[in-house]
């Protein structure tokens, strides 16, 4: 029997995600896929496997998992407190999970979406070319307690005890936006005010999009109520009826009639998706030429750059309470490098 990950308990609505299902916009299905695509790429680099392997996306809190067969796994995205048979394990790292061992992933310390990857990827059924659950479209379903997630054949390249320095995108910040189809319907004054406003991620948000709140006047576009519905895409910032922005994420609808003040550039969208409720965000308009140049530069050798950032997880033996009880390169730490204790 091939290996599998058994889900003993799970937080709210974890789902299997990959890079989504592009190409169905004309049929009304948005791309979907991981809310933080960079976390998928990081998991692939850590496990030395293709970036299209499916992973488990966990929103806010993880769950309890057991291995059926020996697994190598990686943890990326929003850092969550995790233990393996009771011993703390490092985030953004690979670990061995042997048959019967128990991995417990707790709440996110920052950010929203954490990812559990396995060497070989999850081999759940392909639907319309992807394993990604598209919850708003009714494609697939959240992963529930008791479920057995089959694991694909690993390449053999994955090793436990590797770590990656991940870009911190879990605490909000400034997000770059470029013009969208209705940017010109907003007055120059309102666009300037938009770029000067501190927004806070509202409690309302999911894989479709997140609502932002701010102090001060609402933002309205000319002819706001009479806009003919047009295609909308992830990253678009819709100004909803009450004049508060709503940033669209991978499971957004495909058409909408709310005016859009701009579109978040793809490399900055994880900052929005990973903003937990209460996180501060600001927006900065950049020209298309500048945004394109930056996008192209980042794509050059991206996979190789991520792979080059993967290094052995080494710990300072002086910090270990009982040196003999630890594998020196095993991904298990004494816990004091994870910040405060329980």
């Amino acid at each position, binding site marked *: 029997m091939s290996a599998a990950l058994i889900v003993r308990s799970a937080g709210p609505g974890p789902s299997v995600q990959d890079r989504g299902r592009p190409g169905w916009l*004309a049929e009304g299905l948005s791309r979907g896929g991981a809310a933080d695509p960079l976390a998928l790429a990081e998991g692939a680099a850590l496990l030395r496997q293709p970036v299209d392997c499916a992973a488990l996306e966990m929103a806010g809190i993880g769950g309890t998992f057991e291995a059926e067969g020996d697994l190598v796994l990686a943890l990326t995205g929003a850092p969550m407190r995790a233990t393996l048979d009771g011993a703390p394990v490092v985030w953004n790292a690979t670990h061995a999970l042997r048959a019967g061992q128990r991995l417990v992933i707790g709440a996110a310390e920052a950010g929203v979406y954490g990812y559990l990857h396995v060497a070989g990827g999850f081999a759940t059924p392909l639907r319309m070319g992807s394993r990604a659950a598209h919850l708003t*479209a009714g494609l697939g379903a959240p992963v529930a307690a008791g479920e057995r997630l089959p694991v694909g054949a690993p390449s053999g390249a994955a090793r436990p005890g590797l770590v990656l320095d991940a870009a911190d995108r879990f605490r909000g910040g400034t997000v770059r936006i470029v013009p969208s189809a209705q*940017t*010109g319907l907003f007055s120059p004054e309102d666009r300037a005010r938009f770029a000067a406003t501190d927004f806070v991620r509202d409690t309302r948000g999911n894989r479709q999009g997140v609502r932002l709140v701010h102090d001060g006047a609402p933002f309205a576009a000319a002819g706001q109520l*009479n806009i*003919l519905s047009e295609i909308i895409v992830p990253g*678009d910032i819709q100004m909803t009826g009450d004049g508060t922005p709503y940033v669209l994420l991978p499971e957004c609808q*495909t058409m909408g009639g709310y005016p859009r003040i701009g579109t978040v550039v*793809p490399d900055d969208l994880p900052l929005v998706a990973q903003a937990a409720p209460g996180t501060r965000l600001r927006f900065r308009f950049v020209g298309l030429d500048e945004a394109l140049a930056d996008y192209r530069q980042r794509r050059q050798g991206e996979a190789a750059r991520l792979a080059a950032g993967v290094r052995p997880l080494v710990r300072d033996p002086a910090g270990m309470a009982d040196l003999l009880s630890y594998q020196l390169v095993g991904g298990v730490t004494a816990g004091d490098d994870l910040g405060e204790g329980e």
Partner: protein
Amino acid sequence: MTSAADPDDTVRPDRFPQTVPMGLSGMLVRFSDRMDDAANRAALAFRAGVEAEAWEGVEETATSLGSVFLRFDPLRTDHDALAERVTGLLARCDWYAAKLPPGRRLWHIPALFGGPEAPQIEEAASLAGLTPDAAVAELTARPVRVLTIGFAPGLPYMGPLPPHWDIPRQTALTPTLPAGAVVVAVRQVIIFPTATPTGWRHVGQTGFRGFRPEAAAPFPLRAGDEVRFHAVTAEELHRLRAEDPEGGGARSEALR
């Protein structure tokens, strides 16, 4: 198109068609900013024109009621290069007068109008100034065109219905209508692919599924197709649904 970076130049409300950037990897070609049959036909024809060109870097196209969206790979092309090609193609003919693209189908879809399974036909007919019988006769007399598909997967906006069908949405939402429900508002008809809350009025019921995730062709309808409703009794609808759980007895033929 050096203007792309300046938001003030991205919308010129007096002139159509307009070509505007939509984010880093998108471009919108807008034929109207209001519901207009000629603009919808232009969008359908122009999208087929773009598909036929198979431009380098264009990964996906889609229409809405009055516009065409092009998604491209920013590593292979950019807004300036694409805008130039779009402008050239726009100039090639009068797209508002262009023939609808080939490959469209005419669908015949059995539908039950009225009764407990489609309870708002009287209300909708009254708003359109018709008797319920006359309303059903108009809804079944001739095909409606799939103007666009979207909002939800496989959800077709069909029309245009005659002007007296310009009835508003309800102010209150109906909490949920079943899959296959036929609803009307603003000169348009929708068949819901899945159970949906709505402000549109529930005038008919079909056994037609517009989204079939497990099927080889998950989306039976395409923008530009025509749909003709055929009134059936409740008994016929139930029999058709039992015989054909996904299609509800619908059949299609090629349009020439």
